[in-house]
């Protein structure tokens, strides 16, 4: 018994005997053999371990023994496990090599040829608020994007003229589907605003070339707009300004899974034009009615259904002096109805599959009346035999443009963070213009198939390879367009990116009324860029070469008649630089853009390879924003400069060949734009009313702007193309009343 007692006591006391310790040490490096500090090395399941020092070395003691697993781990790297057998007293030396884990947050992004704007987008250069507050933009998306490099300062026509391309070479997409009429209808020599408010969108990708195979039919660039999902809360908003008044509501369901809303605004320039003189003589003051409605529904698996519809009516009429006959005037009257619908559905299908469906329908009716009038504002008719070109300025057009489209994109995650996308789209375009009672009709069935793979070999190297096949029934042509982009991370916040692709675009509707045998116009892009990007600073430099392999050119057959063929061609090459800094000066945010472009093309009636009249060799912008917290106000200044644009007077010689009768370069473009906002409710907890007071002025210094010249038919006189007024002034008060979900007061009253 005593023996047993002693044995048992011995066993128990054995617990109190200090076990023999073992020293464990080693070094942790990454795949490039650089030592890693801060790595946690642990014997799994125990407290024993240590953290590596600046040399990557660790050392600790353990009383564990036997078969264990020693692991090294640190965030963003794959854990490295080493099975070991610990023999007490026998020092253990283990080295680890850690491999970086593929992470969407850390991986390199393909940026060649594209600028991302938006709050949640990685690598964004601008946020949604930036688009609204950039001085000179007046909350117009295209105008704000003109402060980025690669765009031209074109003031007399709407559109984004990107890297030597015409305005129609840039197309806009909302939630994946094409927008047929992104701008209000054209008025001669006056650039129109975009139809969509920047506040409708949470993300924008502005591509200056080399864009993804998911998009096509734009030779130069695409603007991809992503609409917002559910609003934060139920809100009523109102705008009160001398030019526009509006009222709207966004309602968020109690379960926060759906929302609906509507907006109406009315634009009337009467009051404004009475105070600020305009050069044209308006016989019908511009008025716009805009209404829109939306609903959004969140689905069970984290998907989203969104519907947006907008209806717009506009009317205006203006007179300008006729260039051929000094006493006469050109009266232009326009009446427009536009209805745009967009329905999109994105869904997670499970097993790594995602689906994006989109459909849109739009109809646009322009009623245009162009009439030559004498000095008493009476209509004048001309004999077509003696003065065909004058009578040609009297016409009416009723132009109907309908576009219906469907698009489906499927995406599957493959190994790591790589993914594969494929899909198809179909557009039914119906154009019916009635020109002076002659009916033309044009129907195009356009189909496209596309596939694209985004491959991340490591966090440092990514490639995006895609192909797009298109067919247009109207021109009866097909094409296959490859798209390749690569990106390589050179440092913590820096990377190099490259893109190559071919891009096809149907000729413009006007050009196809007379001849549909033309075929696709074509451009090939080669782009390379270097980018450094962190939350405070962005620096980006990009070089590109664009070859226009096929462009539409005019084939004359008589002084006033011509048809079209595809014999045109051209090139554009240049350098774009962008620098943004939010940190150096407190509360001061600025960016600088500079573009250099060398571009020539022979297209339409150009007799030889010349610099197009919409290209200025140098363009630069400085955008500054400063917020004064003490007075809750922001002040924004933008200065834009561009070197002169060429202008040409092209005429037809007796041998039916075009020649340049006169040419020159406009003066440099200079404009200083100002805007300011005062937000009294900022910083207040749950303010009932959120107010923004806004004021802006373009061309503060009153600098003279000449965009080009209109020449008379015989080239003997000309008119400068200038803005309708030297400055544009705007003041406005924007209010919104939010409904906190916990205070249902407004809800009950509605």
């Amino acid at each position: 018994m005593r023996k047993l007692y002693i044995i048992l006591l011995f066993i128990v006391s054995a617990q109190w005997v200090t076990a023999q310790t073992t020293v464990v040490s080693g070094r942790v490096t990454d795949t490039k053999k650089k030592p890693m500090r801060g790595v946690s090395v642990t014997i799994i399941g125990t407290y024993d371990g240590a953290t590596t020092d600046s040399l990557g070395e660790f050392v600790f003691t353990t009383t564990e023994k036997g078969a264990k697993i020693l692991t090294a781990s640190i965030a963003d790297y794959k854990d490295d496990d080493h099975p070991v057998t610990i023999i007490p007293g026998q020092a253990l030396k283990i080295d680890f090599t850690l491999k970086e884990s593929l992470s969407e947050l850390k991986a390199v992004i393909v940026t060649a040829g594209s600028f991302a704007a938006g709050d949640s987008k990685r690598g964004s250069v601008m946020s949604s608020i930036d688009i609204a507050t950039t001085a000179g933009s007046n909350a117009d998306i295209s105008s704000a994007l003109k402060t980025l490099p690669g765009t031209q300062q074109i003031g007399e026509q709407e559109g984004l003229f990107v890297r030597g391309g015409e305005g129609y070479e840039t197309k806009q997409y909302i939630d994946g589907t094409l927008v047929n009429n992104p701008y209000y209808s054209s008025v001669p020599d006056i650039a129109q605003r975009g139809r969509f408010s920047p506040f409708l969108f949470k993300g924008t990708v502005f591509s200056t070339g080399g864009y993804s195979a998911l998009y096509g039919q734009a030779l130069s660039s695409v603007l991809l707009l992503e609409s917002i999902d559910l609003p934060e809360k139920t809100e009523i908003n109102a705008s009160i300004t001398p030019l526009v008044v509006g009222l709207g509501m966004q309602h968020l369901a109690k379960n926060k899974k759906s929302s609906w809303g509507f907006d109406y605004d009315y634009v009337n320039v009467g009051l404004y034009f009475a105070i600020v003189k305009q050069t044209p003589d308006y016989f019908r003051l511009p008025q716009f009615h805009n209404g829109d409605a939306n609903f959004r529904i969140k689905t069970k698996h984290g998907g989203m259904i969104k519907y947006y519809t907008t209806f717009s009516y506009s009317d205006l009429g203006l007179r300008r002096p006729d260039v051929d006959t000094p006493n006469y005037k050109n009266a232009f009257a326009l009446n427009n109805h536009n209805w745009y619908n967009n329905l999109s559905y994105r869904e997670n299908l499970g097993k790594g599959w995602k689906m994006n469906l989109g459909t849109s329908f739009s109809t646009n009716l322009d009623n245009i009346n162009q009439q030559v009038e004498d000095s008493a504002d009476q209509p004048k008719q001309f004999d077509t035999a003696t003065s065909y070109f004058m009578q040609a300025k009297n016409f009416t057009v009723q132009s109907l443009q309908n576009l219906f489209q469907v698009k489906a994109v499927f995406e599957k995650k493959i190994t790591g963070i790589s993914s594969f996308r494929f899909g198809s789209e179909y557009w039914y375009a119906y154009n019916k213009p009635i020109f002076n009672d002659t009916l033309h009709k044009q129907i195009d069935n356009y189909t496209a198939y596309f596939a694209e793979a985004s491959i991340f070999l490591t966090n440092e190297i990514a490639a995006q390879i895609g192909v797009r096949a298109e067919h247009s029934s109207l021109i009866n042509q097909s094409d296959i367009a490859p798209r390749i982009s690569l990106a390589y991370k050179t440092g913590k916040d820096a990377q190099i990116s490259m893109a190559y692709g071919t891009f096809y675009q149907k000729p413009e509707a006007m050009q196809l009324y007379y001849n549909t045998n033309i075929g696709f116009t074509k451009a090939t892009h080669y782009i390379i860029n270097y980018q450094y990007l962190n939350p405070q600073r962005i620096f980006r430099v990009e070089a590109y070469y664009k070859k226009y392999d096929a462009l539409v050119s005019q084939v004359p057959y008589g002084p006033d008649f011509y048809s079209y063929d595809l014999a045109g061609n051209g090139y554009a090459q240049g350098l774009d630089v962008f620098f943004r800094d939010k940190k150096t000066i407190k509360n001061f945010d600025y960016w600088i853009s500079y573009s250099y472009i060398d571009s020539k093309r022979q297209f339409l009636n150009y007799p030889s390879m010349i610099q197009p009249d919409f290209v200025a060799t140098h363009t630069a912008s400085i955008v500054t924003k400063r917020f004064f917290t003490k007075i809750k106000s922001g002040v924004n200044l933008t200065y834009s400069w561009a070197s002169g644009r060429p202008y040409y007077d092209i005429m037809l010689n007796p041998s039916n060949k075009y020649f340049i009768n006169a040419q020159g370069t406009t003066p440099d473009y200079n404009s200083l734009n100002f805007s300011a906002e005062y937000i009294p409710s900022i910083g207040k907890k749950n303010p009932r009313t959120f107010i923004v007071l806004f004021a802006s002025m373009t061309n503060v210094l009153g600098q003279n702007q000449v965009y080009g010249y209109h020449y008379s038919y015989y080239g003997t006189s000309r008119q400068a193309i200038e803005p309708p007024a030297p400055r544009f002034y705007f003041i406005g008060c924007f209010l919104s009343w939010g409904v906190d979900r916990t205070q249902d007061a407004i809800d009950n009253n509605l």
Partner: protein
Amino acid sequence: MKKLCILLLAICYLQLAGYSQSDKYVAAMKTNLALFDSTGSIPDYIALSNTFARIGDAEKTQWLPYYYAGLALSTEGWTSKTIDKDANSTQILAFTDKAQALTTDSSDLSEINDLRNMAYVQQLLVDPATRFMSYGKDASMALKAAMDLNPNNPRSYYLEGMSLFNKPANFGGGKDKAKVAFQKALDLYNIATPKSLYPNWGKQQTVDMLAKCQ
């Protein structure tokens, strides 16, 4: 009799083994918690965080080690000028998720939410002008949750005071409002009786801040 002895000794042995297990935990926690308050050289907070994470991974059922692993990273975030704040806060939030999964007690969850608030504030300060909408909202929601879960948690009012102190007066902040929050925090610190190993930091910081608010 022999069998009974063996049985009794076996039970004793098992008891001792079990007792020494939690003894080990308490001892390890106490040792490392002491490093937080060290007045000598600044401790390596990353290593301290890793040590707490190790304890948490080994124990598997304790929320406190993960809480302190996050708190150590948060302390590093306040003092370091070179650390990547976004990556650091992502890690702190990962630790708060682990801690949250291991307790349902509302005063525990209140502490965890205070830690989440600090992680979001550190991210907000990276680029306040752009981030005050997103991270600012997350930070105030976390602080509100902390106050709702335990209205007597002094740390919540200390953090509220810090937020008010750094906000301009015309934005709803300022020293006067901050002083009220710090005073409430101090009153709660004075009557607090935290359990052993439970968070009880912040009293000295509150006293220092109150002095600045005078």
